[in-house]
């Protein structure tokens, strides 16, 4: 190696170093600017990637939730609601600017099943709306776009655009079969609704007064509403707001003191509280001295004086016993919380209203207007004598129910005559800040009066109000007659017969009340309600027992549905099978519909429809084939399952309506 080589080597090293330095200088001068923008760019890229990542996950979740909400047949849902969701998404995709329009889904009459099972009717309205905005689209075009934008749903078999612009939806038989299987496996599960704490105020008779047919309506409707809401998983408080407070107790106590001076030690044998009441009332109206004493007793009762209190309790207990007998017969559950309960709350609500400057002096009274404009009738909160009124106790009650019971939904089942009063109470409660309409819901579930067959107010022949116990007794008698006329007394065991008698008697009284739109008056007729044709409890109960008897005819045991379900697929090939399946699956729609405005006649109509459709099914689809000798030659298990599903649906509805199904009738 020569020196030259060495020198060259040194040179090349120097060159390499220079190169390195110059590239470093370059990157520093250039880099300063670039690095900074780079940082921002990198940040944005990271954010962008994150958003993309999240978006894809959310999309996947939506798809999964859509799918699972249906595929998991363990979950129960309303078909209408599901379709509303499907179309709402279609709207959001196809017409995002009109995304807030409520989706209209209607079930298609079963007579027109070839056009579809459900339809979306929004296209026409939307076309009109778009025209207003200057966009010309035909409803059919819109319907077609909606159809295209619908996300896939496993409950939908196909969709078509029909007529002027309906999107017709055909349900999937696979889904229906799964849903029915699910009903058989785990019973009817309630559709999901946001859980609320609901207070149902119903029945509410008055102490020492006759419980009349008006109370009967409230009791029957209130019980069924409670059962419906409980089934929907609400937290329901049933309250019996009985009339156990007021001036009349003064005269009752005074009268009691006179009639049974020893009442503190010996329980007074008041057999008939009504006549006792009448006696005292008579004295009160005629005897000044007695009247004065009666007023004194009111004061002593309200101050909690021991003897008056005791007398009051004794009187209430008499009524309470009577009420309970009726509740037991009708299978009613309700918790007593009478007006007396609100005595202290009335004091504090007056205070509360006064502090809020809601009270106004009016000829010695303290009144409250339900609105600022002072329209309508004001509430009398404090009487001129310092006493309280129904207005006071209802204000105290609503405040207690919202503030202390923490209810978000309060339902008053009271006759239509009180509608002004309750509307005033609700408005007043809102005005003074007790009730917040964005959180709380208050409903007056009103109902019409009960008429006799003559179309006049329901009275006995002598013109008296009908005693409830007498009415129920009459029902029992008529029910037995009906059964005997059909020869049931010869077929059923004595136990079965009395079970059937009660089921029919009380069932028909309840059902005839519930199956009409409650707002209208209704004619009370044992003849009509005991008819075994038409929309009556008797017809429903008969159909139900018929369904139950089908599986009884089998030699095999079908009580263990699980094992049958594991081996048998539900087949819905026959037109009537398919019709029955679709009818049964409406139950969730119906339950939600009933709960929306608290009308139970929809549920009655549904039961009636189920029975009718079942009869069609049973007439044209054999379940068990027998030969001439009456021996079973073939069993269609899928149809047996359909029968069981029908029974399950009816059973659930019956429970809500308060009907006791009997397996033999």
């Amino acid at each position, binding site marked *: 190696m020569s020196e030259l080589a*060495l020198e060259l*080597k*040194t040179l090349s090293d120097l060159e390499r170093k220079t190169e390195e330095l110059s590239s470093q200088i370059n990157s520093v001068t250039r880099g300063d600017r670039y690095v900074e923008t780079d940082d921002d760019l990198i940040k944005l890229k990271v954010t962008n990637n*994150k*958003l993309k*990542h999240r978006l894809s*996950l959310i999309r996947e*979740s939506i798809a999964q939730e859509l799918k699972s909400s249906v595929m998991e047949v363990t979950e129960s849902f309303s078909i209408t609601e599901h379709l509303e969701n499907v179309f709402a998404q279609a709207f959001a995709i196809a017409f995002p600017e009109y995304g807030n329009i409520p989706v209209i889904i209607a079930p298609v009459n079963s007579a027109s099943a070839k056009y579809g099972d459900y339809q979306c009717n929004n296209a026409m309205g939307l076309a009109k709306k778009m025209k207003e905005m200057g966009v010309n689209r035909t409803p059919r075009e819109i319907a077609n776009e909606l159809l295209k934008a619908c996300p896939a749903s496993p409950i939908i078999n196909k969709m078509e655009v029909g007529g002027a612009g309906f999107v017709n939806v055909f349900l999937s038989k696979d889904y229906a079969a799964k849903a029915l299987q699910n009903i058989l496996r785990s019973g009817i599960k309630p559709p999901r609704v946001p859980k609320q704490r609901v207070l149902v105020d119903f029945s509410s008779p008055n102490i020492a007064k006759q419980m009349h047919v008006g109370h009967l309506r409230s009791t029957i409707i209130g019980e069924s509403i409670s059962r419906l809401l409980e089934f929907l998983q609400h937290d329901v408080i049933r309250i019996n707001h009985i009339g156990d407070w007021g001036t009349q107790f003064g005269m009752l106590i005074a009268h009691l003191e006179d009639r049974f001076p020893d009442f503190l030690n010996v329980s007074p044998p008041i057999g008939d509280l009504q006549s006792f009441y009448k006696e005292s009332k008579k004295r009160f109206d005629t005897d000044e001295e007695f009247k004065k004493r009666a007023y004194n007793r009111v004061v002593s009762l309200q101050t909690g004086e021991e003897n008056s209190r005791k007398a009051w309790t004794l009187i209430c207990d008499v009524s309470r016993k009577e009420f309970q007998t009726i509740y037991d017969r009708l299978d009613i559950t309700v918790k007593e919380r009478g007006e007396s309960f609100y005595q202290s709350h009335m004091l504090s609500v007056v205070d509360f209203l006064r502090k809020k400057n809601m009270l106004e002096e009016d000829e010695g009274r303290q009144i409250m207007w339900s609105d600022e404009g002072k329209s309508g009738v004001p509430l009398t909160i404090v009487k001129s004598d310092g006493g309280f009124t129904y207005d006071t106790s209802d204000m105290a009650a609503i405040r207690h129910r919202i503030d202390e019971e923490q209810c978000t939904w309060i339902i008053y089942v009271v006759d239509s005559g009180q509608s002004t009063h309750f509307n005033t109470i609700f408005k007043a409660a809102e005005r003074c800040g007790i009730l917040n309409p964005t959180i709380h819901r208050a409903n007056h579930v009103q109902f019409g009066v009960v008429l006799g067959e003559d179309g006049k107010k329901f009275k006995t022949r002598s013109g008296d109000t009908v005693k409830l116990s007498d009415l129920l007794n009459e029902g029992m008698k008529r029910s037995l007659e009906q059964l005997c006329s059909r020869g049931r007394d010869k077929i059923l065991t004595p136990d079965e017969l009395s079970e059937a008698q009660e089921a029919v008697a009380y069932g028909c009284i309840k059902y005839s009340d519930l199956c009409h739109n409650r707002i209208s008056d209704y004619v009370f007729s044992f003849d009509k309600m005991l008819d075994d044709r038409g929309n009556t409890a008797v017809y429903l109960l008969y159909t139900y027992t018929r369904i139950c008897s089908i599986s009884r005819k089998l030699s095999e045991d079908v009580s263990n549905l699980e094992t049958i379900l594991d081996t048998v697929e539900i087949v819905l090939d026959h037109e009537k099978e398919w019709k029955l399946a679709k009818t049964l699956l409406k139950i969730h729609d119906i339950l939600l519909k009933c709960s929306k405005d608290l009308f139970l006649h929809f549920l009655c109509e549904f039961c009636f429809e189920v029975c009718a459709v079942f009869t069609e099914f049973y007439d044209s689809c054999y379940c068990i084939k027998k030969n001439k000798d009456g021996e079973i030659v073939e069993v269609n298990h899928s149809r047996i399952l359909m029968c069981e599903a029908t029974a399950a649906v009816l059973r659930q509805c019956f429970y809500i309506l308060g009907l006791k199904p009997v397996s033999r009738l």
Partner: protein
Amino acid sequence: MAGEDLIAQFQTLGMSEQKAKETLKNANVTKNLQLALAQAAGASLADGTGMLIYHMASKLKPQQAEQLPLLVRYIVERKLDNTQRVDAALEYVLKCGQKLKANIDVKELEQECGVGVVVTPEEIERIVQAKIKSSYKEALLEQRYHFNSFKILQDVRSELKWADAKSVKAAIDVEIFDLLGPKTEADLKPPVKQNEKPKAAKAKPEPNQTAQAVEAASDGANTIAELMKTKVHFHAPGENFKTDGYVVTEHTERLLKEHLQKTGGRVHTRFPPEPNGILHIGHAKAININFGYAAAQDGLCYLRYDDTNPEKEEEKFFVGIRDMVEWLGYKPVKITYSSDNFQQLYEWAVVLIRKGLAYVCHQKAEELKGFTPKPSPWRERPIEESLQLFEDMKRGKIDEGLATLRLKVTLEEGKVDPVAYRIKFIAHHRTGGKWCIYPTYDYTHCLCDSIEQITHSLCTKEFQSRRSSYYWLCNALEIYCPVQWEYGRLNMNYALVSKRKIGKLIAEKIVHDWDDPRLFTLTALRRRGFPAEAINNFCAQMGVTGAQIAVDPAMLEASVRDVLNVTAPRRLVVLEPLKVTIKNFPHAAPVQLEVPDFPQNPEKGSHKIILDRVIYIERGDFKEEPEKGYRRLSPQQSVGLRHAGLVISVEEVVKHPATGDVVELICSSQSAEQAEKPKAFVQWVSQPIPLEVRLYEQLFKHKNPEDTNEVPGGFLTDVCEHTISVVQAFADQALAQVKVYDKFQFERIGFFSVDPDTSNNRIVFNRTVGLKEDSGKK
């Protein structure tokens, strides 16, 4: 008040007041003692019984606590009458401890503890005599009183298990006295240490006093295999319940049985790095302990990438980690990924929520920091709600940072409810876009250990505070619970290992890359030329103690020298060549010389070098004006050429006309036999090839460049200047065919290794270490 009462009570056991006071500080022992005292109420505690109770109470593990009444009774009844029997009883109870409410077989217990066994003085005397006669007599006669009689004691007791130690010792002393007579003056002198190690280990490891050594603690060994076989005392597979702090539940027995079935009783370990950086010298310890222990026990070791954090995970890290494990000579039985278990971990999280042991929390990350973070207001939310929210988290419905899943458990250090899952909208390199909730270390680690049936979950001391949550989590899920063993971290002085900080050094162009030989990453050490064996041996020397160790690089370098001394063949190289022309070159033409690769060990091979008229010597080996004591070449002093058989003397010094620098020496030569023996031999080359040699120096000035007390300006200000220099060296042609990472000793200079930058026309060497520790530096 209560304290004084207790002290008085403790004193009744025979403790001094001082001891009683000290005992009181240990809550555990105090609790055990109180229970024991209650149990022994009324019994006589005389004659050492009390102290035996204390002995038992201080050794009692939680797993044995159930049997405390039994033990106390046995001690009081004097069935367990010495510490040895108490220890045996404790051991026996522990063995039964994998079941809750274990039934103790009293008969077996008594047999295990030798209850009632009496050893007579005659028996002891007989055995002592026999043992000394057969095994120790000669050694005793030679070493006299310097002989460690403890060996005899052990030997005797192996035969007479229940003999009282004091009696045996006394018997041995008598026998020895009989044999040797009274002590002479020589006997009283301290013994001369025979093989005092003049080791280069000047830089001693400095055990950090903060950490307490684990039970397994002991000193180091020369190799990992030796260390793992002799110095480490972990539990046997399946005996998890015998370890300290292990929590036995009603499922333990079944789970351990299943575990043993699955593993066949073999040791399972794992090395679980996060794949988000480069391995460094600290990891080498973990690798060696995990792989080494498995190898020593004929077990298996996984390489598990703990890839639960989707950020910053890059392919190159995965490859790099595996590379380094293999470079250190280990082969994982299987490579696993924590992310493989994401689905299982998720399902377990749901189980925990259902059991009410985890909840979704919305506290912000900042709220959880600090010493006393506010307790979560969401801790007691309904289970259903947490389930729904956790599902929502998984589905991307909740934004990053707005929800976490937290475990209802408090860590030893007081941290409440550690986070198990957090939201990150980042795709994972293995699971892609599937997840946006990722499990934390705390949550993942133990569960993956359990899944892999790890027998010994070995980790550094910092994780000791996570041990209870580790056990809690496995037990909460009713799955197999491995045992966590902690060892001290290994820290290197004058070095940085933090990913972020090394990144900064690279960004600042202070070092070139992650494998710059001035760093202590494993790739850097490999590039610098450190043999894997040396690193492993170094780790072995550090041992598996619980103490955190900080060592100087010199310690590691010493290990490197030890290995290279016997493995790196020698070559002649001059780093700074000075031309020498031999006027009276004794050969007509260039000659080839055969030179041994290892002069001390010529049979290990040789290579050929050329000797020509013109040679190059190290510029530093010539001095025109030598100072006193100078031993090499000068105009007045000749020097020998290694392996050449020549001694040269300067005839003329040729200087550069302009600079006056010496550019050549004209020398005369004499054969070594004829010449007067020169004071030194130097290396030289003829017809050389050029080498680029990179010389590295220590990067930092201070021991702890990250310590802001030591280096207030931050580690970047602590960097030494000129820590790399590149020289053009001349080497013998024998070095022309080297391969990357070939290692050589350049005679008289140091150890060098071929750098990966080497190409066909360029050979690059890195200095690995000097021949001796560079004394000139400090």
